[in-house]
């Protein structure tokens, strides 16, 4: 594989040809990494939709140094040798990101106080970093009634940002997708159309890939704020998946089981519903030790650092 040089916010890095700007930035790490609400490295075809990761390409490549005329989605734009990218060093990018954040919020219910995702919500993080203090909208927000899709997953469509990740999970991890994006424009919704249970061994991963509180774990519903639970790495012998999970405990009680996520909130491995929903007893699991959660959520960051 040939290597190419790319400069992002004045930091130079060498990456394999075919790498996206976003992944090149993740190799550098730190605060120059653009936020990504829809891209998910393990889901083919994801990205390009939310537009939060837009960056400025100030120089296309060494060969063709012209700047790209528009801001580019860093998750879907491949680096070229000699490319120069501006993320947090571009006022234009920061203004666009602020605007995108606002777009994502104008129809969001802002119901964090009653949302199970609070504390590990990527939209919360985004708003904290790029949101306005006040709203500029006066109209009613779009609303949908929460529904159960299957007996273990709750769908709060009001909170959805239409990243399509859960649709891709169903397409790429399961045999028969029964839910999808219905409607058009701002009437789009995640739905099964006729009440159908999303029922297969890997459907629970839809919860983990959801960047917001649109898909939540019914077995954990209103049990605790996540920042009052302690995460532990644990594993078990499982015939369906790798069996490596994070247990979220309060005292001795296992309140929730999730996959293990990296610092960008992406699952390291997808896990099966058996591990996720059916094993909540301490002796179901070999506990490896406390899981260090990377600085991530506005609410979560202080707490986990103390663990």
């Amino acid at each position, binding site marked *: 594989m040939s290597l190419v040089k790319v400069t992002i916010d004045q930091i130079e890095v060498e990456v394999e040809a075919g790498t996206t700007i976003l992944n090149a930035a993740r190799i550098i790490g730190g605060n120059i990494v653009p936020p990504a609400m829809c891209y998910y490295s393990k889901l083919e075809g994801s*990205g*390009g*939709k*939310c*537009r*939060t990761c*837009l960056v400025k390409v100030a120089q296309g490549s060494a060969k063709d140094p012209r700047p790209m*005329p*528009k*801001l580019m*989605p860093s998750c*879907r734009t491949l680096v070229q040798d000699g490319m120069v990218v501006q993320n947090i060093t571009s006022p234009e990018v920061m*203004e*666009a990101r602020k*605007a*995108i954040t*606002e*777009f*994502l919020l*104008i*129809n969001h219910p802002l119901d964090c106080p009653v949302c199970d995702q609070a504390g590990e919500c990527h939209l919360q993080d985004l708003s904290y970093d790029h949101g306005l203090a006040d709203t*500029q*909208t006066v*109209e009613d927000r779009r609303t949908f009634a929460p529904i159960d899709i299957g007996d273990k997953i709750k769908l709060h469509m009001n909170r959805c*940002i*239409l990243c399509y990740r859960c649709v891709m999970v169903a397409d790429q991890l399961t045999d028969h997708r029964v839910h999808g*994006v219905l*409607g*058009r*424009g*701002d*009437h*789009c919704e995640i739905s099964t159309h006729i009440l159908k249970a999303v029922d297969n061994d890997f459907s629970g991963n839809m919860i983990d890939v959801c960047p917001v509180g649109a898909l939540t774990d019914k077995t954990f519903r209103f049990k605790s704020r996540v920042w009052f639970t302690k995460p532990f790495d644990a594993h078990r012998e499982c015939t369906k998946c790798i069996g490596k999970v994070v247990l979220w405990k309060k005292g001795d009680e296992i309140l929730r089981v999730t996959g293990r996520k990296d610092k960008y909130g992406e699952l390291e491995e997808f896990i099966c519903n058996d591990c996720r929903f059916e094993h909540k007893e301490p002796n179901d699991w070999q506990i490896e030790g406390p899981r260090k959660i990377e600085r991530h959520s506005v609410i979560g960051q202080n707490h986990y650092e103390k663990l």
Partner: protein
Amino acid sequence: MAQQILLKNSDVPGLASFEVYRKLGGYASVEKTLKNFTPDQVTDEVKKSGLKGRGGAGFPAGMKWSFLDKSTSNPRYFVCNFDESEPGTFKDRHIGQLNPHQLIEGMILGSYALGARTSYIYIRGELFYVLRIIEKAIEEAYANGFLGKNILGSGYSLDLYCHPGAGAYICGEETALIESLEGKRGNPRIKPPFPAIVGLYDCPTVVNNVETIANLPWIMNNGAEAYAAIGVGNSKGTKLISACGHINKPGIYEIELGLPVEEFIYSDEYCGGIRNGNKLKAVVAGGSSVPILPAELILKTAKGEPRLMSYESLAEGGFETGTMLGSGGFIVMDETTCIVKNLLTFSRFYHHESCGQCSPCREGTGWMERILHRIENGHGTMKDIDLLVSISKHIEGNTICPLGDAAAWPVASAIRHFRQEFEDHVKLQKCPLSK
């Protein structure tokens, strides 16, 4: 009388039938081309003609063809974009309805040049009656050996089919059209890759507008030089202008590019002036998405030169004082028109047609419509006017496909040129022009 390439025989009765079309010299270009030209030579002719895409973007057609990936053994596809839906634009319907064989003849030439063995005409679902006319014409073309296996003994074979849409402006965007043709939602694809590399069924594909394709027979019959001799500057050939709104003679006109706008609006040969002897207030010159211009800027450029119906002249002055030729949808408004209300209908349109895939367009188009609704109905504030400008600016350039720009430009330009009218709505707390 201007050169007529597309409308020449429009009033000949029965033009839609093979017999009449053939008698008038139809399909001669296919005979000539399959005999005397290699596919690459056809592409070269189209390149030399200077023909630009007539759907709105104005990208040189021959250059678009030359991007087609010919290195793979995959099939290649040629697709006609007949999803005509841009408000103010109704020229393609005219071709499909009255002169379907000229479109088919062009499809054969384009398919031959690109090496396509199967081609599709994607036609908006509302125009099903036109689809039926074209399907009948296709049947006749098969029966007479111009479609199907071994056309005219040339060894070249082509199948041509119509495909109906079902109500979605976004499918006029070529990658959304391809998705729709594949039986999916009309969500535009994220580019690159472009269709010339990865298009229909992941194969190299060219998508061209109806009018673009209908020009091909004339170009092959008369030569690229003859086509390039028509027009002005880089605006070669003729253009169909569909004129509507407050004019005496709404309709479809074929002009030689370079015609003065003033002549187009006021001459009896074209629009015949403003209805009821009213004063011209504003024009949207190239379909609803292009910037609106007030009378003084559509008739003359900011430099005081006469504005011409050409790609360059209409764009003169950039978006500050100019606009675009776009699709040729020419919407004329007289002094009685409320610019805010007209804009509200455009914004409602773009809100309705947003696919919902990317957040600026999905959320921003509806937001703009709601604010305009408030202003038009007397509930707006001065801050709302600036907010509209800011939303439009934040949508523009930040979306997956050009629908975002198409929604943003009308808003930005209406406020740029008619700010006073927006402020009057706010001050009076009602529409100053409402009855």
